[in-house]
């Protein structure tokens, strides 16, 4: 089989796809009656033009790194885990239960405990669809969609009936104890005498996200399990012939995927809100799909794509503020176009490029 060179595969094609998505987004802005270049300028200035902007951009990006890696790991086993939203919801529940369980003396103890709680609950929520796929052949996409809805109903029930702070109307838990407060960028940089604005919610979880990216890279390309996952994703019959158990691969990849999605809650629930709210995930589970597709399921690509989406989310807030005609939903449209072009319409670019390239070679 003839193949395009790697630079075209991981550089040029995603770039063209992304450019197309942004051109169409620009046309949408133009159609609404605003200047797309000005909108772009506002987005960039609002997200990376100041330390304050960076603080929010990296906060959003941290969420998307986790959900993106979750989708990416599952993609390597050719599983489409669309349930990041539900797994992150459950991750939030796990993290909240851990943080509320005892009066944490110091964040160095609460942080690993919260990671464990969030990861465990996220993985548990992915376990049932994974088992159904591996043993019963039930399509993972459908079951994870169903589990997203079940998770949201479960969380609403728990928050309204069980976990709600006493004497309060809003369905949210009491604030986590002081000892469970994770250091923000403001506090961490102050240790080194660097000043950083106080309000942005970016916190130590960003470092966890970087660590998670390294972990996924090492897992997929440097371990036996990663080899099994890739082999299975590439060809199931070949993997089975090589003695790889499909059941093990499906379960392992989905549990790791759910665990990563759940860990997003360490950033959003423990790091930012410091209490459990309804809808703490806010669609980050779905952004993960766009991020993983853009990053070609590679941790480095996923990380960069997550930063890009962080820029879009933070820039989108500023955009709505400065250009009221373009509301925040513009970001959802861009997200949709990125998913469409990099995911579903990939061949639209690839086929002509292949034709062009191989004609030149021969």
């Amino acid at each position, binding site marked *: 089989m003839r193949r395009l060179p790697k630079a075209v595969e991981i550089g040029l094609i995603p770039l063209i796809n992304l450019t197309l998505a942004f051109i169409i987004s620009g046309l949408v802005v133009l159609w609404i009656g605003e200047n797309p270049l000005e909108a772009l300028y506002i987005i960039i200035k609002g997200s990376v033009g100041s330390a304050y902007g960076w603080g929010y951009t990296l906060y959003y990006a941290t969420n998307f790194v986790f959900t993106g890696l979750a989708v990416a790991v599952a993609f390597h086993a050719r599983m489409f885990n669309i349930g990041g939203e539900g797994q992150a919801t459950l991750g939030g529940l796990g993290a909240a239960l851990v943080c509320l369980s005892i009066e944490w003396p110091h964040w160095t103890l609460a942080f690993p405990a919260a990671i464990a709680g969030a990861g465990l609950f996220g993985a548990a929520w992915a376990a049932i669809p994974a088992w159904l796929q591996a043993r019963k052949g039930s399509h993972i*996409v459908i079951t994870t969609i*169903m589990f997203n809805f079940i998770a949201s109903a479960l969380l609403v029930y728990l928050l309204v009936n069980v976990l709600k702070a006493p004497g309060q109307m809003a369905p949210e838990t009491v604030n986590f104890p002081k000892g469970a407060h994770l250091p923000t960028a403001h506090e961490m940089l102050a240790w080194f005498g660097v000043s950083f604005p106080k309000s942005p919610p970016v916190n130590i979880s960003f470092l966890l996200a970087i660590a998670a990216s390294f972990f996924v890279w090492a897992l997929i390309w440097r371990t036996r399990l990663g080899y099994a996952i890739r082999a299975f994703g590439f060809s199931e019959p070949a993997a089975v012939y090589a003695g790889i158990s499909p059941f093990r691969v499906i379960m392992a990849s989905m549990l790791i995927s759910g665990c990563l999605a759940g860990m997003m809650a360490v950033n959003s629930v423990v790091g930012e809100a410091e209490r459990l709210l309804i809808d703490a995930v806010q669609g980050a589970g779905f952004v993960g799909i766009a991020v993983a597709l853009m990053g070609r399921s590679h941790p480095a690509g996923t990380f960069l794509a997550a930063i890009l989406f962080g820029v879009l989310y933070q820039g989108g807030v500023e955009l709505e503020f400065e250009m009221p005609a373009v509301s925040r939903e513009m970001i*959802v*449209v861009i997200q949709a176009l990125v998913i469409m072009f990099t995911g579903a319409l990939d061949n639209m670019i690839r086929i002509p490029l292949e034709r062009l390239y191989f004609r030149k070679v021969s």
Partner: protein
Amino acid sequence: MDFATLIQILDSMLRLSAPLIFACLAGLFSERAGIFDIGLEGKMLASAFFSAAVAASTGSVWAGMACGVFASMVLAALHGAASITFRGNQLISGVAINFFASGMTALIGQNWFKLGGRTPSLSGDSRFLPLEWPLAETIGAIPLVGSVYSELLSGHTLLVYVALLAAPVSWWVLFRTRFGLRLRAVGENPEAVDTGGLSVAGLRYRATLICGLLCGLGGAYLSTGFAAGFIRDMTAGKGFIALAALIFAKWRPGYALFACLLFGLLEAIAIRFQSIEISGVGTVPLQLMQALPYILTVIILAGFVGRAIPPRAGGEPYIKER
């Protein structure tokens, strides 16, 4: 629970089931032809918005519905292009369409009407009004049976009746016409259809467009029949419940109708009672009722109650041999 309450619940079941039936049958045509479609939600949403927006501007619900259905079919054609012509991942395309519809409707809605993503509320000719059946009042006076006629059957908007009729019509099209046979064949064994000299792509495009048409009717009903205007993300997961119903019905039209009615009934009960006391068990929380369609579908998928086997070529792009 008295008889009048029962009639009221069944009445609201019909109204709540109608959009599910449209979307479920839409998914049926698409998936039977081998195109997975998780973008039912987005297509319904797009149609709901354009139906309400155009109806509000022109004052004609028919113009609204035509535009809504057109919008839904444009998205269906896009899904078709991605999954048939460009052989892309059908699930990813569906996800993208859902987001696209959710974002665009809110964006354009805010831009056109400046009402926070809503359309102005519709009245008179700009929405579908309940149809009173002949002699509803006279027959309604008869005890018990009368209220079945006057309350339950009469007094729905046109599209509710269309939805109820669409199920048997779909069955007839899929199982009693040549087109239906070919459509099902293309979802099971496209090579055979291709060998028979028929165009696999052509048949699949037709199936996706029918899917768009039906989703469009479902969306139009939501914003101009069921409600009086569009609000942001008003489909609220109905497309996914319809998808669940489709699996629950194991991709068969008759069962699909009953699955949608069942899920509509669950919703009606949840709305009517909020929480239900069952003696000996305790209260059933509202959220459990809301989650029940999804839980039931997972149980069906798990194979505990018979096996749900999807069309064999579903989700696979067809590559013609060279």
